[in-house]
């Protein structure tokens, strides 16, 4: 990465640092790519000179977001999204680190592929890009991938993404083997047979629309097995997206038994519910499918209570040809890098969840989970920062979408919370207007 040249002072801000639990007036000084001073006062001490001063005008200055679940089309499906286009969208959304998923073509299941992603990201010089590695070779669910070598090469966690490992013995071995390297495994709780062919959550809505549905309980069935395997192996597990109130209870019970279990939720399941698929708009065709309003409220409560550790965009680009299809034939997924932060801020406005608790799930929590120095406002931490006007309303237009694929469920919706400035390693990578 290019290092910044001139030290910057960001003054007159409302600093929010979930790691140190600080939410108040402050300023930051940034030099050589790192935070060199954290001042809990809107103004600089006198005598500071040779600084490029940026007046934050009282807006929120927080650690840049860390998004643990991002898909691009690189390598293999570049027309969908490249690492470059995703990085531009990330910068515009205040996301300064993103973890790209290994289900590319070819699959990231060996150390040379991990190295490829890291080198591409270095050449692009926008945001930090970290690859997740495959848990099994080619996501085949049978043979363990080279977890140790990929971990050494820089893979930050291991996952088979949308392909749950059905064979319990394989998952048991993946969990305990990865644990030997202190490597984190993420696994999606998806019961494959119940979910087969389903495009919605079963219930009154799906029946009325004539869509094939899967019970919300299918998630819990798979989750309970995974939690039992965590108990068996003593390994750590990131439960890759929970979406139902049953899953929230299961996570709470597992933690009460002392298991090292972390849970993520996608922003889509915190904001939308099954009624959003009402006019068959395929941008709401998601996997897992959107759930009931009860489930959504349980998720937002779990977020406020700290049961959900991490919120992800689950950025899944799908070009028009994959979405301009009947609902059940359309590819599942939505983009989200650019809207993750405004949508989270929306939860603060709508559900009164303290901003600092919301930001924790996209800064210090994911950073601590995968061992990044970023995600906090402390001296020596990378100067990965976002400045956001949390009150400014805006409407996302298709022309504003920087991703190559435009499948955003937030398109033409009013959002509140505009990113003004994004810094990565002290360099400005995005500035509004």
């Amino acid at each position: 990465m290019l290092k910044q040249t001139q030290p910057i002072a960001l003054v007159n801000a409302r600093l929010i640092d979930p790691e140190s639990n600080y939410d108040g007036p402050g300023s930051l000084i940034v030099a050589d790519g790192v935070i060199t001073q954290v001042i809990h006062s809107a103004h600089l001490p006198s005598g500071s000179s040779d600084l490029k001063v940026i007046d934050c005008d009282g807006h929120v200055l927080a650690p840049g977001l860390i998004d643990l679940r991002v898909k691009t089309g690189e390598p293999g499906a570049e027309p969908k999204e490249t690492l470059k286009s995703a990085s531009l969208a990330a910068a515009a959304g205040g996301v300064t680190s993103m973890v790209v998923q290994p289900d590319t073509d070819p699959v990231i299941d060996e150390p040379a592929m991990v190295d490829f992603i890291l080198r591409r990201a270095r050449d692009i010089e926008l945001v930090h890009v970290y690859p997740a590695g495959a848990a099994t070779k080619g996501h085949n669910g049978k043979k363990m991938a080279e977890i140790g070598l990929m971990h050494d090469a820089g893979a930050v966690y291991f996952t088979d993404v949308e392909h749950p490992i059905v064979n319990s013995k394989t998952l048991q071995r993946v969990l305990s083997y990865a644990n030997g390297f202190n490597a984190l495994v993420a696994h999606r709780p998806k019961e494959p047979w119940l979910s087969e062919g389903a495009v919605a959550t079963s219930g009154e809505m799906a029946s009325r629309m004539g869509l094939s549905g899967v019970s919300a309980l299918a998630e819990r069935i798979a989750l309970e097995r995974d939690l039992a395997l965590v108990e068996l192996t003593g390994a750590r597990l990131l439960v890759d997206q929970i979406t139902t109130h049953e899953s929230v209870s299961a996570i709470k019970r597992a933690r009460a038994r002392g298991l090292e279990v972390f849970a993520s939720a996608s922003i889509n399941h915190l904001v939308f519910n099954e009624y959003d698929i009402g006019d068959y708009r395929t941008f709401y065709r998601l996997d897992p499918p959107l759930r009931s309003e009860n489930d959504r409220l349980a998720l937002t409560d779990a977020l406020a209570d700290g049961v959900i550790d991490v919120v992800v965009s689950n950025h899944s680009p799908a070009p028009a040809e994959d979405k301009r299809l009947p609902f059940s034939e359309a590819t599942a997924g939505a983009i989200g890098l650019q809207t993750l932060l405004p949508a989270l801020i929306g939860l603060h406005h709508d559900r009164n969840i303290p901003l600092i608790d919301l930001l924790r799930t996209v800064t210090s929590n994911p950073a601590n989970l995968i061992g990044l120095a970023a995600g906090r406002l402390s001296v020596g931490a990378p100067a990965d920062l976002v400045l956001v006007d949390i009150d400014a309303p805006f409407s996302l237009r298709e022309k504003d979408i920087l991703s190559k694929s435009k499948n955003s469920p937030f398109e033409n919706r009013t959002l509140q919370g505009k990113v003004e400035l994004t810094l990565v390693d002290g360099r400005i990578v995005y500035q509004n207007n």
Partner: protein
Amino acid sequence: MTTRALTDPQALRDLIESRLFAFPKRHFLASQDLDPPDILALLDLADAFVDLNRQTTKKLDILKGRTQVNLFFENSTRTMSSFELAGKRLGADTVNMNPRTSSVAKGETLIDTAVTLNAMKPDLLVVRHSASGAAELLAQKVGCSVVNAGDGQHQHPTQALLDMLSIRRAFGHVDSLTVAICGDVGHSRVARSNVILLNAMGANVRLVGPPTLIPSDADQWGVEVYHDMREGIAGVDVVMMLRLQLERMDGAFIPSAREYFRFYGLDREKLSVASPNVRVMHPGPMNRGVEIDSEIADDLSVSLIQDQVEMGVAARMAVLASLAARLEA
């Protein structure tokens, strides 16, 4: 025990005679059949057999008239020839049987084979089988002494005994040494037998390997478990490498041979954290470049691997001779 080899044949025969003792049990099925004094007595006797084996005339008549059957349901060239030589040097009539290719293929059960063999009145039955507990089952059905030459993933007690002999001859003692057993402990009968004997002899035992190859309850075996090899062999006196079966290298227990070698293969660099006088052992046959670098395996200043083969014959002679002494008693 012997510091200087005896070269006078008669003196050596007298020494062996004086060290002969009756094995504490009728069968030798597992390491726990031996108490520490028995282990020491067997090692002293084996030491004398080492000297004998280095002479031109290696033949004794301790087992004269005895019949020893080597019943190997699982192929093993080196263990079978080691037992065969041990028996022959002690004067026994030895017969090798490989029922995998004969009557078992025709559907005969293990117990049928045992009963048939028993009718031929052998005195010593050396058994290798792919199923854990097979030696024990045979021992219950035959009238002779049974030596377990490896049963499934359970035990291989004569291997552990020869390993003790190799270690004691290299260091002069076994107690207070730190021994790291590295690799596929989970599937290894050699590891199980060695843990028991090493603990009985007062050594500190460590197990090193990926969590998929170490039993999850191994921390209750009186050992320390390490998943990081550099931590596991730091300061150790002996590194005992285990063989990794090829079929376990392809994604089921470990992702690949190259990943295994990177993290758990013994090379110069990893070995540099061990004690300066470290010795390396391997029960054979080796997978060079998977669990052990050739540079280490062939370096006679650290490798005891060739010694282990030599000690194997002597240790097995000690076991056979003392089992026969018990039959006479």
